[in-house]
Structures are given as C-alpha cells and as structure tokens.
C-alpha cells in the first residue's frame, strides 16, 4: 500500500512538471495552430539561467529562499525575452506560410538553442544547488520532500492563475478572441501581434518555472535536459486535447501517473514479460492511442475553451 501511494506521489510530482510545460505547447497551439517544438529548450534555458544566477549569488550569503526567488525572476525574464525573440524571428515571418514551414523552423530553433546552451554552459552535467530543504515527510509510509510539495503547489497556483487570466481579464478575452478567429479579432481592434507575443512570453515564463522545478527536484541540469521533457509534455498536451488549457493540465498529471504506475507495476503484472524499460514507451504509446482513438484528446471537443 505504501508502495502504491509512493508511486502516486512520484506520478503527481512528475505530472505537475509535465502539466506546466504542456501549457506552453497548448497556449501557442491554441492561438497559432503551431507546435512550438523549441519549448522544451526554453525549459532548459530557464534551468541553466537559474543555475548561473545561483552561482553568481553564491558569494553573497543570501538566504536560500531569496536566491531561489531572484533566480526564478531572472530566469523567467530571460525566458520571456527568449520566447518573444523566437516568435519574432522564427515564427512571425512565417505566419502565413504553409503549416509545415514554421514546424521546421521550430525544430531548427530547438537545435540552435541546444547547441548555444552547450557552448555557453558546456557539455558537463551541472549540480543544481539545493535551495529548498529536502527533508523528507512520511505520509502513510510514503515519502515526499519539501521540493516535491513545492512543485505540486507551484504548479497548482500557476495553473489557477493562468485560468483566471484567460477567463477573467481583458487580455484573456483578447487571447481567446485571437484563438477563435485572428482576422475577426483584428477587425474588433485586438492587436494580434501583441497578443501572440504575450502568449509566447507567458508560456516561456511557465517553462522557466518548470525548468527550475526540474532542476531543484533532480539536482542536476544539462543542456540536453529539455528535449525529452519537451516531447513528454507535448504528449501530455495532445493527451488532454491540444489547444485546451484544462486538457494540458489533466494530460500532464495523467501522463505522470501512467508512467509512474506503469513502470512500477507492469513488470509484476506481466510476469516479467514487460519491464520498466517500457517507462518511456508508455508516454508515446499513449500518444499513439490518443491520436488513433480520440484525435481531439480527452477534453479536446470544448473548442470554445481554447486560449
């Protein structure tokens, strides 16, 4: 029983990260119909920038919480600038091009970012300093530490905030309008370019937060960390119904749970025929199953909710 609970906690933590990153994919898709494959690299840049900030601040003997907040702030700003830049340079000139073109530039941007990060931060794995106490709490035999609690809480707060922003503010209404029909929105006086830029910046800020969460949880950062995470989050977004915010959240958490329970139990259930080496396969199996059985995703039919 404690093992099951532990697997659920593992899944929730992992799923929260997937969900935050998936939001970035889904927001951009909702508005532009574009899959921003560079999003995973933005997560990586967020983590790397945070690492540099903590290294710079290491000499000042600040309390860890302050260091965390400063690095969070700087990383978010760098990622927002990056998100803006990516959109401005790589996607905006192609807005009316065939859909394949921006998809290919997205992959190109992702490769460029990865290599730039390799040049700037080097090829090595870097240890991310422990900023939060990672003292374990034991709940019914399962262990959860403060970093993991923080991850789940931050994810919930960010997602709630985003939903409120989209549904309760003027900006949110503009975003929904652009998602529904950019041409009509423009006629109604919505500045489409500004809305799209803001969408990219919001998504990138979420990515920065996710990057720091991953870095803090695993204590390790690397220029390569964004690619698999990006693919998983993309899968989560598709699972929930790409373009749908609640879908991305649900998809992220579900994917985290599927992976963790799958990897934890399939070996025992299949008598050793399948093993935990199928952990990553689950994610992509889910992707294929969703595309075949329910292409619009779990919550995909509620198009009006797109943002």
């Amino acid at each position, binding site marked *: 029983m404690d093992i099951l609970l532990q697997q659920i906690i593992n899944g929730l*933590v992992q799923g929260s990260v997937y969900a935050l990153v998936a939001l970035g994919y889904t927001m951009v898709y909702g508005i532009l119909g574009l899959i921003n494959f560079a999003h995973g690299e933005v997560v990586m840049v967020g983590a790397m920038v945070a690492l540099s900030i903590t290294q710079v601040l290491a000499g000042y003997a600040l309390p860890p919480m302050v260091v965390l907040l400063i690095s969070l702030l700087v990383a978010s700003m760098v990622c927002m600038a990056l998100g803006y830049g990516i959109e401005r340079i790589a996607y905006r000139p192609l807005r009316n091009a065939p859909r394949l073109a921006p998809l290919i530039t997205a992959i190109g941007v992702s490769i460029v970012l990865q290599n730039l990060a390799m*040049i700037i931060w080097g090829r090595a794995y870097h240890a991310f300093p422990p900023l939060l106490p990672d003292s374990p709490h034991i709940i019914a035999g399962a262990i959860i530490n403060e970093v993991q609690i923080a991850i789940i809480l931050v994810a919930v707060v960010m997602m709630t905030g985003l939903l409120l922003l989209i549904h309760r503010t003027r900006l949110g209404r503009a975003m929904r309008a652009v998602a529904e029909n950019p041409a009509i929105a423009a006629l109604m006086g919505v500045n489409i370019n500004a809305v799209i830029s803001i969408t990219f910046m919001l998504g990138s800020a979420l990515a920065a937060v996710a990057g720091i969460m*991953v870095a803090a949880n695993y204590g*390790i950062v690397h220029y390569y960390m964004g690619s698999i995470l990006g693919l998983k989050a993309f899968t989560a977004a598709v699972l929930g119904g790409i373009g749908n915010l609640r879908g991305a959240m649900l998809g992220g958490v579900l994917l985290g749970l599927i992976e963790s329970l799958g990897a934890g139990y399939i070996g025992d259930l299949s008598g050793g025929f399948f093993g*935990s080496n199928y952990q990553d396969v689950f994610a992509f199996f889910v992707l294929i199953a969703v595309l075949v059985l329910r292409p619009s995703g779990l919550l995909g039919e509620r198009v009006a909710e797109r943002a």
Partner: protein
Amino acid sequence: MSYKNLSLPLLILALAACDKSEAPTAPANSGTVANELIVKIGASSPLTGPQAHIGKDNENGTRMAIEDANAKGITIGSKKVHFELLSEDDQADGKTATIVAQKLVDAKVNGIIGHLNSGTSIPASRIYNDNGIPQISPSATAIKFTAQGFKTAFRVMTNDAQQGKVLGEFAAKNLSAKKIAVVDDRSSYGQGIADEFVKSAQASGAQIVAREYTNDKAVDFTAVLTSIKGKRPDLVFFGGMDPQGAPMVKQLKALGLSAKFMMGDGGYTPKLIENAGAAAEGVYASLPGVPLDKMPGGKDFSQRYEAQFKQPIQLYAPFCYDAVNVMIAAMQRADSAEPAKYLPALAETSYDGVTGKIAFDEKGDLKGGAVTMYQIQQGKWQPLQTIGGSTPAAAH
C-alpha cells in the same frame, strides 16, 4: 578546435564551424612536406549529448598522446612523422557511429582510437575491419566487441566478463549482500555489465530480487526505485554511466532506501560526486586497471592533464593516452604506418603504459587486466581493493 575560448559574439560563427571543425582539415601542412610523413589517427567519442563530458575527456587523452608523439619527433621508415588527430562526434549512438566510421575510413586514417561506448564500438568495428584499419577502444567493455572475430579490434581495458565477475563477487562476498536489485540503462555496456554482475553475484550466493531498466537519457528513476524498495534489497547495482547514476543514487536516498549502491566503471567519475552531493557518500564503483596514483606514470599524467585542460581527468583519458602510444609503438616496430603492415605488430604488443602493462590475447582483449573497487568516502573516490591483473613493478 576548442569552443572554450570563443567569446559570445563569436558564438554563431562557432556554431557554423561546428560541422566543419571535426572534418579533416587539409590545408598547408597535410601535404607531403619534404620528407615528412603524415599519419592520421582517427578518434571518436560522444562530444555532444549526455555523455559529452566523458567523450571530451577521451578526446583530451588522445590529443595529449598525439601532441607528445609530435613533440618527441618520431621517425618511421626514415621519415619524420607528424601525427594528426581527426576527432569525430558519434553521439554515443550506434547509427551515428557507423557514419562517423565511414567518414574516418574515407579520410584514410591509419588507425582508430575509439569508440567510447560499447554500443558504438561494436557497429563501427565492422567498418574498420572491412577496410583493414586497426581500432583500439580505450573503454568499450562489452564482450561482443572483440568476440566478432575481427583481427582489427583491440581494447586496452578489461571486458565486462572480467569486471562484472569482480563486481558480483565483491557485492555478495565482501559486502555480504543477500538480496540484490539490478538496474541497467539498456545500452550494450549497461546491459552487458549488469548481466555479468547478475551471473557472478548469483554464483556467489546472492539472490537477485529485482531486474529493472531505464535508458541513457533518463533523469527520473523514482518509479523504478519505488518498485525496488518494495523488494527490500541490501544492494542496488546500476549498469550505466554517471549522468544516470548521480540522480539515481540521490532519488534512492530520498525514497528512504537504505540499500548500498554500486556501479561499474561508468560511475567512477568526479562528476558523480559533484552531482549527487551528499547522497554519493558510500557509493561503490569499479574501474579496470590500478588506481591512477598507483599507475606507473599516473601522478605525472594527471598533473599534466590538469595543467593542459584545466579540469580533472573524468574517466578514460589515461586509457586513451595508452591506446595511442600502443598504436604508435606498433607502427615504430613495424617501421610503417600502413595499417596492413603494423597490424601484426600491434597484436604482439607488450607495452608499459600509464595504466599498467598492456598486452593483447588472441581476441584483442587486454591480457590479465586488473580491476579495482572504489568507494566514495568523505567526498572522494578511495580505492578499496585491486583484484587480478599483473600490477607493474613500478607501482607503489
């Protein structure tokens, strides 16, 4: 070509150069300058991707040996030799490795130092064999590498069977582990060493309670470790490299497993300690050969390495250094850098390198290689015990 000294404005330029930098540069001095013989040594390791730091370390070790040889001024066939390094990135990927191998063959290299991984050395070895080019891997340990019947494949490191045997016995006997969980990263190396470990541990009376898997890009092992936790093992063995080892041992401790943690040579790096932090304390790992400071030229080598590359040796650099020297020595004995001519001399190698005495058996495996067990104590790798092998007399 190193990226390190490039300042930010040059980044884009560097990026554009990325592709070209590894290609054989064929300007001025590669032609036959009066009475100079150009000998091209091909090297390949992952220079990008998760294992890039270890790959770069291999390249550094190889480069040092080549620069030393050039400084020494070696003559072969009464011609002064200039050695050239062609280093290629195989991304630790088998498919890429075959492309790289073909590229090196086309560049007419005289010999190959590489690859780093078993999963790249094995597919590439066929191409080198077909073209008759001698290949010395500094670090591929999978049994299959030298078991394919290729005359051109050699290694200067003990194989998985030798190492896995030592690891399994050490776990079951010295650490008296009764219940052992085994995880591997499904690479040729990880799978190979884990399988040999299992065989040896079982033969020594231990019980394997879990056999789990991950991959060489993963960072999250909580699901697998939680499942292992339910089986209450005394020891967890991981067949894989340090990028996975470090987060794995951290998560193992975070999940409250009290089991000991052990890896093969893929875990014996300073990075493991740096990245796993306090959780690294007490981790066991093995490395073929004797400890670096007990190697005949070990201390001197590591000082020179640090002076030149401004970082400690990661893992296999001394083995790469020896591999190059073994190859050059064979060329000298054969008085030719022609692959077909010096290959027989290479097979009859008997060389005292920094890692110890190097001689090959009929398959191309290192004869009587030693394996040393290490443990992280107070944040440092400490040698526990060297098993097997002929320790050279100079060791102290």
